[in-house]
């Protein structure tokens, strides 16, 4: 697909270029922040699976430079207008939003102090001012000490074990494997990235901290939700408008880190393999009444009646403990729609991406094939 047709097909691709982001993913983080206020009181952050680095850019601009981003960054003015015309936006929402926009513009830049951001990826990340970037596999055991020493210059791998002495407020992971198409393998590899991120979070996150990670909503995702709930007070699955409805991707937002008593992250017994988590869950379940696992009481909103479900279908004993996290769509309704195509003005100039895409491992194969077919002609 050419640049220009991609601009039309994908509003966020175009916006990212216009606003200087290395990837359209930046909007996912911005929209998650808008819903969950992720960056409130945050100065120390770990960004996992961060290449090409648009989330790190967001962190840098918000935390280091003190910039503010709000709906204006991704709002489709035309859509707002049409929504008002068609009577879709309730009156009061229109007003508060208008206020908010003004607030945003008037606020001053407030750079934060003692900001520490460490970003990790398998791929090299072009340098970003004020950010420590590391090239590493987050599933690899050697990455734990690597991260700890990046966070704390005094760290000694031989002495300190696996717990950060200066923990962080927020751990992000946007990790995704190169999907194969064998669905359960892809889901497995994705869950391993999630567990690797969680494992690192358990080493570096301070109690009360937040953890946000990409998740594939596929088979057995409810097992993952239940397991994450062991460590956090609130677990919500969020889908930003900038993430396509046609994609299985969503983000798990885990708030208020509360490691179970006596729990220690361990390299020897990493999460995600073995039955450790499921055992912990079964134990918890036995102790607690069911209210906890039922999730937050759902609110009846805008006249939609919440239906209770009478579910007496017997549970399969072989199946793990499951729980479905509440779902929240974020980025307001007038955000650009990542599934829609947009008309662009006649004189639209398609910009080059901020960073050229990473060369794929089969680049050489493509070049050789091209050379071969060229020489035959």
């Amino acid at each position, binding site marked *: 697909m050419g640049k220009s047709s991609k601009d039309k097909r994908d509003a966020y691709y175009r916006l990212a270029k216009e606003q200087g982001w290395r990837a359209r993913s930046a909007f996912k983080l911005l929209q998650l922040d808008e819903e969950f206020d992720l960056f409130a009181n945050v100065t120390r952050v770990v960004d996992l699976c961060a290449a090409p680095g648009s989330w790190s850019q967001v962190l840098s601009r918000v935390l280091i430079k003190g910039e503010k981003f709000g709906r204006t960054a991704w709002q489709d003015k035309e859509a707002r207008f049409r929504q008002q015309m068609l009577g879709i936006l309730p009156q009061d929402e229109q007003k508060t939003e208008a206020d908010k926009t003004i607030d945003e513009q008037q606020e001053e830049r407030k750079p934060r102090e003692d900001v520490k951001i460490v970003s990790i990826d398998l791929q090299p990340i072009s340098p970003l001012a004020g950010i420590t970037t590391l090239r590493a596999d987050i599933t690899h055991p050697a990455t734990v000490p690597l991260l700890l020493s990046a966070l704390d210059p005094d760290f000694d791998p031989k002495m300190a074990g696996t717990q950060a002495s200066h923990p962080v407020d927020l751990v992000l992971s946007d990790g995704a494997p190169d999907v194969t198409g*064998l669905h359960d393998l892809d889901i497995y590899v994705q869950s391993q990235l999630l567990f690797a991120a969680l494992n690192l979070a358990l080493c570096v996150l301070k109690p009360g901290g937040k953890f946000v990670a990409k998740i594939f909503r596929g088979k057995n*995702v409810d097992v993952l939700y239940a397991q994450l709930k062991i460590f956090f007070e609130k677990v919500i699955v969020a889908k930003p408008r900038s993430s396509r409805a046609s994609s299985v991707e969503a983000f798990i937002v885990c708030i208020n880190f509360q490691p179970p008593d006596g729990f220690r992250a361990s390299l020897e017994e990493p999460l995600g393999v073995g039955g450790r988590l499921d055992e912990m869950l079964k134990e918890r379940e036995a102790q607690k009444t069911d209210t906890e696992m039922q999730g937050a009481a759902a609110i009846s909103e805008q006249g939609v009646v919440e239906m209770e479900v009478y579910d007496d279908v017997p549970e399969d004993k072989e199946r793990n403990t499951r729980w479905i996290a509440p779902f929240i*769509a974020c980025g307001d309704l007038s955000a650009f729609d990542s599934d829609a195509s947009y008309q662009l003005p006649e004189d639209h100039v398609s910009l080059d991406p901020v960073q050229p895409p990473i060369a794929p491992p089969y680049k050489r194969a493509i070049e050789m094939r091209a050379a071969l077919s060229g020489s035959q002609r």
Partner: protein
Amino acid sequence: MAQPREVCSPATPPSSILNSLRRKLHLARAFSQCPITALAFFRDASYLLAGEDTDLVVYDLRAGHVVTRVRVFAGQPIHGIRVLNGRVLLWGAAKIAVLAEDDVEELIRGKDVDALALKRVTAPDWIYDAALSPFDAEAAVLITAHNEVIPVRFDTPDGTPTLGAVVSPSRPMLYAANLKWVSDNCVLVAGGTVFGDILMWKYHLNQEQPEMLSVLADHEGSIFGVHISDELLCMDGSKIRLLASCSDDRTVRIWDVTDRQVEKSGRDTQHELVAPRETGFGSTPGLNDAETERPIAVVMGHMSRIWGVKFAPLNPGDVRPAKTLAVYSFGEDSTMQRWRLDLDASSSGDARDPTSRVSAVFKHQDIVDVHDGKHLWSHALTTLGEQTIIATGGADSKISLMTESTFSTPSPEHNPVHEITTLDLRDVLSSLPNPRALGPGRGLEIIGRYDFFSQDEVLATTSKGRLMLGTFDKGLHWREVDLEDSIASGIQSTYVLKTIGDGAALLGTTSGSLYHYCGTQGASLIGTVPGKVVNIVLLTGLGEAHDTSVELLVHLHGTPDAQHFTLDWRTGAVLAKADIRGMDPRFVAMSAAKIKGGLIAIGSRHGWLSVLRRGEEGFRPVLDFATSSKDAITGIVPLPGKDADGTASPYFLTTSRDSKYRIYEIENADSDVHLHIRNETAPPFGSIIEGGWFTRDAEPELIMYGFKSKKLIVWNETRRQEIAAIECGGSHRTFTLMHDPTDPHRLRFGFTRTSKLFIYSQRESVHRPVKTGTHGREIRALSCNGRYIATGSEDTTIRIWEYKGQQQRQSGGREMRCLASMKLHITGMQQVKWLGDDYLMSSAGNEEFFVWRVRRLNNTTYGGLGVVCEAVFDDKSKHGDLRIMDFDASKVGPDGSIIITMLLSNSVLKTYRYSPDGSFRLLAHMSYTGACLTQVRHLEVNENGLSALTGATDGHMATWEARFDQDKIRSHVLVHVAPVHQNAIKSLDLRATPEGFQVLTGGDDNGLAVTSLEVLSDDAGIRRYTVSSRAIVRKAHAAAINGVALIQRGEATLGVSVSNDQRVKVWQIGSERTELVADEYSGVADAGGVEVMASTHDDDENSDRLRLIVGGVGVEVWTV
């Protein structure tokens, strides 16, 4: 805007009230066609074991059908099967199951599958490979996705496997692994990592410490397949071992992994592994004591990622040194490629001197492309005597079997399945005892024209007037036919040689002479025509024993006029002769056939069809018909009729070089003849179709052949199977193909290349399907019309299926039979919908929208459907680059008009009037908010206007109204909009109720919502609707709900939902409450939708059951 009436939250009834319906509801999977994820041969390749989703399926390879099917895991596909020493081990993700070979044997003999003694255990992690020990029948090892080996033992009292302690030298994520037992207590391990390294290590039974051997770090992308070879014998008697690997970088590499026992420095690697270090792409692993090595051979293959690579197993009896090995690779591009690896292995070499070691050269041998779509997920190889048997399983749920000769020199009695014979005339002549002496004549003598003369003979002319007859009998044996001098000099100018019956041929020369030749009578001149003979076309097929005569046309150079002959094909006696006159002067005949009512159809080089009728003065055209092809019509074949003589079918088929075949119906009124196109299809096999025929079965199958790049492909369109793919260098002007009349798999193909004659013969198809498949990509949309199911896939094709009892199978086995496959869309499908029995519509990206006419063909025994694209939507936006997300269509009025409302991805809805002449007229359009509209249904339509319902990515449902105007394009008016879901509405179904409609929607938000629509007013004929109540089950599924269906069953309303979480759920929807009444695992990932197929009245006991079909990655049929 009108406000909807709010409905108060209903009081929730006590949960003790249980509805009796639930207990009656039994949701069962009746049929499934899922990706084939594991394969293994059983009992010397008499049987094949296949992992199809959760089930182990056993195929009898001789009989070619399923013997039995056992569910192995509750909700987990099988990823691997190993058979050894009386035991069958299966695994999927972290789950393991074992059973005895004898149990499988029992199953094959028909023992009840439920009584099966499957023993299961769960490993701590995902498993990539398992190896049963050849040394100890009670032992096996597993390797996990984190490079850990787990020992397994089976000698427990009840046979349940027990897992031992996990051992690993380091735990990076792997994408592939392979295990090989090298002694009774040692296993060689190869693990391929995400970032391109291969870790070679040894696992010693009962030892905690693994032995790291080497890190092979040369690939540039993730490793997707590794295979450790058997030990290979060198010339000097020493042994070597190789490793094959394949990767995201599109290469296959071969490594020398011979164990040379060098002194190890003995450093502690464990500590270094947990030391802080970078591990990403391009960083060097810190394993100092492991040697870094280079591959001994590298080759690039496949169009995309390579999922697997295997050495062909060595023949256990073969004790000769290894010189050539066959290596097979299996790709995302759904092809299998065969490589020949020539080894230079005089000696295993010196451990200290790498230059003295083995070297190898790769050569590409063959590409086998018999699966649809993407991905070969599974394969099995075995060597039996001089044959290697390979089975492949794909994402298309097809299993294909192929037999190849091994590279070792064949023994004389070896009778290959296929072979190619080359004929160099000089060699042949010099081997003849006494070739006829010819005059000096100029130039080299070369092969002229040729044709297969009978099942076992080929007849050829030479440029100097010889007639040569070759007989196939363990090779090809030639003799020269004795000819009188006068005939020999005539035959020298032969331009056409055509077999007209079994052992009889006609030769036409540039001077207009026609010679007949048969074995008993020899050659004779039977007539002359006024011009140079350029073509002879049989009108009635080859003469056979019961025929007395054949009819044929002789075409002349430079004129469309031709001669019609009726001959006694045995003797060559001319029984009748007629002129063909009055043709358009531009007409160049290519093909012809006798069709219904004694008419003759002739096809031209430029795509014209001429239909001729016999009059007093000979044949005269009664219709000149421009087909939609501008390319040559290469063949005309009448469809087999239902009458005993088989000629009276009103249809004939044409094949064309424009890559399509077409079926026409002849309307033969007294004076006028009309042709109506009933089918137009581009079969998938190639770009140039050269001809075809129907088999003589009770249900005739359509076979076609043509050229695709450098190969001639013979293709069974009915079964969608390739019969042969013959490397011939590309499209040829002169070639000849002969098939056995009763077995289309036995065939011969002759072609000339660099003035040599090549003859390819096959006894049977090189590969044959053990199981037929479906789309090889995700099904994005499906629709049922009671009888047929239409599916639209990411592979851009639409297929039409019939779900029916299998022909060959007992026990009421069912299959999805593909009746048509249409490849006209060029972007991924969005939607397909039937409108009544005969209209099918489809939409995709790039504003592609097609209207298809689908008819059954009557008065023929051919079972294919007639499918024609009646119209292509052309009212596109300026750039024509929007997706048509969904549409709805309703018939209105007596003239066959159809009102179509479509949704474009830029938030626009448009309503058209479609007329059967193929035109679209825009009636109304409107923009929604900018959010992408995803669902549309007509609530009411008539000539004057419509009322419609839409759903969008913003989670809102909207009702619309439009009035149509003769002269003006109108706007749809938004009647009411209401939020229902939090974000995209991904599926929608509705049913009429006394008050209006009940709507069931599935969202990306995991929610299942029930919405009621009520009539607001019907002042001017079209009723307007508003949303009167909304209710939602928030956590109906754990993931997006991609398909819903509403079913009325007696008093009860049932809702069905399918989701990315791979559960199929049935809900009872009451006015007060909604109840989950069934919840089952589904093997269909990435479901595209669910449809009600009809109740199962046509078969057996459970007549009131409903059938549902789910499509996505695979298809499933469920009964409720």
